[in-house]
């Protein structure tokens, strides 16, 4: 059996999808799994060793340039795309899974010759696949308040009928020797100030026996080196970051792909949720993550817009002291009392993630004032799960394809 997965979102989304690929491998252990991903993310191959048999690259950069830049012939992109799909279609796939869920990949999924397509695909000018109520729910509500409490990985798994599987990792016999700090995210409004991170790093260094390192990609070196001394910098590629995370006692980070990578390796995570970060939908898919989210009226703010405030209110409200205290709690061998921490910091919403056997991924709110709200979120999630599962059972096997009125455009992405 041959399976093609199409995943053309960003790096963080690819990492978030790993449990689903693991689940796909478990579902079809004898199959050959191929993945079509963006060429610029080829560095993730190591993460899928043993799961994915072949990677096929989509040169999004060049194809996008060819649609507008003056040196390209107007049909260059067409010929490149046709050539790519001709190569893909040398293989007769039994299944095509669309992990990306937008119009771009729906069209691509429609161009693949396959016996069956799971997820959205386009054919004869129409979009298909939305008769699956989980896919319809994902399409209509992911990223919106109605889907609060549904983690991206699980929601996508339900839509594609794949049970997410945690990566098998060796039992840790000793605590990690590092505290890693990942200060920069892809969006400045999600960043805590570098000066505050600087104060945090200095204090942690003096108060723990662990080595404190500031993580960054090569293109981030210049910015980071203005704030942190060379001895604290760990500038590396993704694979080196993964190696380091395996030996790390705690990762302190904003909403980044490194957070999702740490979750794969069961590294404890302290997430500083600022700006447009959505911890209830794309928080760490982990049993060992705590999120600190400042209580502000303007947040979480929309992804695509600049910060609407005169100052970075959410970042200002998150003090170095609070983060330091939380970090010590996570590093402590004692069972931390997060309720007490939340009482001491009423300016914050404190969330602890958990993956439960039946309910799946969930968050426990440690802040008393918000407890009721989060319990309502959990109850609502349970009701939605029951209802959608019921509807899904009733439409299964019915060949009833619907045209959709709305599908996310190709910019839609989870993280």
């Amino acid at each position, binding site marked *: 059996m041959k399976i093609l997965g199409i995943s053309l979102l960003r790096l963080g989304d690819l990492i978030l999808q790993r449990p689903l690929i693991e689940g796909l491998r478990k579902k079809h252990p004898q199959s050959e799994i191929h993945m079509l991903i963006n060429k610029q993310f080829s560095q993730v191959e190591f993460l899928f060793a043993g799961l994915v048999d072949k990677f096929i690259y989509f040169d999004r950069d060049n194809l996008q340039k060819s649609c507008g830049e003056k040196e*390209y012939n107007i049909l260059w992109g067409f010929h490149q795309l046709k050539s790519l799909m001709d190569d893909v279609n040398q293989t007769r796939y039994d299944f095509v899974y669309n992990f990306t869920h937008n119009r771009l990949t729906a069209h691509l999924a429609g161009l693949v010759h396959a016996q069956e397509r799971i997820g959205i695909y386009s054919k004869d000018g129409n979009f298909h696949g939305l008769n699956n109520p989980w896919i319809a729910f994902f399409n209509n509500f992911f990223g919106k308040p109605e889907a609060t409490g549904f983690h991206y990985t699980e929601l996508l798994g339900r839509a594609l009928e794949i049970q997410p599987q945690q990566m098998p990792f060796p039992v840790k016999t000793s605590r990690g020797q590092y505290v890693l700090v990942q200060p920069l995210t892809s969006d400045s409004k999600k960043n805590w100030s570098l000066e505050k991170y600087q104060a945090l790093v200095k204090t942690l260094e003096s108060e723990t026996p662990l080595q404190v390192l500031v993580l960054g990609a090569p293109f981030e070196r210049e910015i980071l080196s203005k704030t942190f001394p060379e001895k604290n910098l760990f500038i590396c590629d993704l694979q080196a970051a993964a190696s380091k995370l395996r030996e790390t006692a705690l990762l302190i980070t904003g909403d980044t792909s490194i957070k999702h990578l740490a979750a794969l390796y069961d590294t404890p995570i302290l997430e500083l949720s600022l700006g447009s970060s959505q911890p209830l939908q794309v928080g760490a898919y982990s049993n060992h993550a705590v999120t600190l989210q400042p209580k502000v009226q303007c947040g979480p703010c929309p992804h695509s817009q600049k910060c609407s405030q005169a100052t970075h209110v959410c970042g200002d409200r998150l003090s170095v002291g609070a983060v330091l205290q939380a970090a010590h709690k996570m590093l402590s061998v004692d069972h931390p009392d997060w309720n007490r921490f939340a009482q001491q910091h009423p300016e914050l919403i404190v969330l602890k993630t958990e993956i439960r056997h039946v309910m799946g991924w969930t968050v426990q709110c440690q802040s008393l004032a918000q407890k009721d709200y989060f319990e309502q979120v959990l109850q609502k999630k349970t009701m939605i799960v029951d209802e959608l599962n019921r509807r899904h059972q009733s439409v299964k096997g019915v060949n009833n394809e619907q045209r959709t009125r709305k599908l996310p455009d190709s910019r839609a992405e989870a993280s």
Partner: protein
Amino acid sequence: MNCITFSENAEGYLIPFENNRALCDFENPLAEAEQWVQTQNFGISNEIILLGLGGGFHLQVLKQIHPHLKIHVVECRDQLLPIFKNQVQSQLENYSCFHSLESLLESELFEKALMKSLPVYFMKSTWGAEEDLFYSLWKNLTGRSVYAIARHFANLGVEIDEGTLTSLKKSEKPLTIREATDIVLQSESEQAKENRGYFETLRELTR
């Protein structure tokens, strides 16, 4: 015909002028050429078209930095080639001089550009006073004119309906992948239906 003259700069290079406008940087033509080459994306194809010879310095630098490229040079002014051959490079393969758009459209180079979707590069200063003609050549060589796109689609077996053609001809603007997609979506031909998905995919990349 415009007046082409040559002036010698401090380094002894003859710099071409058209109606008293230099066709490359007078003082540092090589530095200008190097900067131009560094800013272009030559990773698209091993065979390219260079539109505008000018002083030829950018061609010289391009050949030094990317010796593997097969370069088709297109000019419209005969006077530039002899000076180029004397002071830059005695041999110039794949050179064409078109004095009109019509002569380009009848040429083998145009056919080749259609078949292979060759990328087209230019250093704007080399266009001088012939900007309109070079712009028109660029539009056609890159498939962005109504005539060129009709030829492209004819090669693919996609018929363009009369209404679409009429509508496209009303605008002088270069065509884009969006118009190309509209053509495919509005065509009734089987080839259009078979290729529809590719154009819809490309159109998503422009959103």
